[in-house]
């Protein structure tokens, strides 16, 4: 089966969110990912990238590498896998305590929803720490 692999390296800053999402969305589109799934993937990558940009290197800055692989599964079906890598502080965002989403507006803390959304929006989500790098792997499939 046909597979492609591309990579983008950016300074992990909030300003580069637009560049990261532009890369992810245009590659997803090229791979045939439908609009709805592309947007879900973009929201998921936004959440994970913003975490890296906000915390990984604080108070300094560093590089975030976005590695993107796509593949074909059938006439219309396919998949995309995105690895977000940084060599900042070791941190597994997937271990965060999930927020209680049954609370009323007044009782709810305003944050903590990002990772919950990522888990819902993608088909596979993994964290690894290898050779001093935090690696988040996200996978999305379509029919």
């Amino acid at each position: 089966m046909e597979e492609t692999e591309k990579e983008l390296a950016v300074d992990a800053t909030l300003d580069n969110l637009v560049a990261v999402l532009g890369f992810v969305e245009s590659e997803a589109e090229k791979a045939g990912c439908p609009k709805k799934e592309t947007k879900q993937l973009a929201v998921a990558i936004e959440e994970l990238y913003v975490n890296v940009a906000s915390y990984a290197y604080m108070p300094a800055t560093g590089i975030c590498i976005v590695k993107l692989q796509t593949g074909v599964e059938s006439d219309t079906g396919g998949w995309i896998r995105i690895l977000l890598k940084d060599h900042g502080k070791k941190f597994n965002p997937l271990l965060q305590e999930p927020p209680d989403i049954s609370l009323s507006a007044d009782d709810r803390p305003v944050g903590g929803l990002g990772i919950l959304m990522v888990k819902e929006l993608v088909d596979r989500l993994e964290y690894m720490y290898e050779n001093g790098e935090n690696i988040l792997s996200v996978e999305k499939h379509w029919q």
Partner: protein
Amino acid sequence: MEMTVNKNGAELTMKLSGRLDTLAAPSMTEKLDELLADGVSKFVLDMGDCDYVASSGLRAIISAQKKMNSLQGTMIVKNVIGDVMEVFDMTGFSDILTFE
């Protein structure tokens, strides 16, 4: 994202166009902090042209809801499109917001 604001007496309407993402959410909160405190008893958030909401956007929305609750006013969210409603569903926001 574009925010169009219309104030009619004690009723404030904000229409969002584009993406309510991490870059846009702080300016929405900032704008609402200023506008809602100025005698607003009903706040209408029109999301008909908003097709993308990140968690930072949800934060801005819940902050507005909390603010309206503290002002003993009402907040209505209207014209929400399907993809955005899915995000509200998965985060429990469908239960705490009032839709029209």
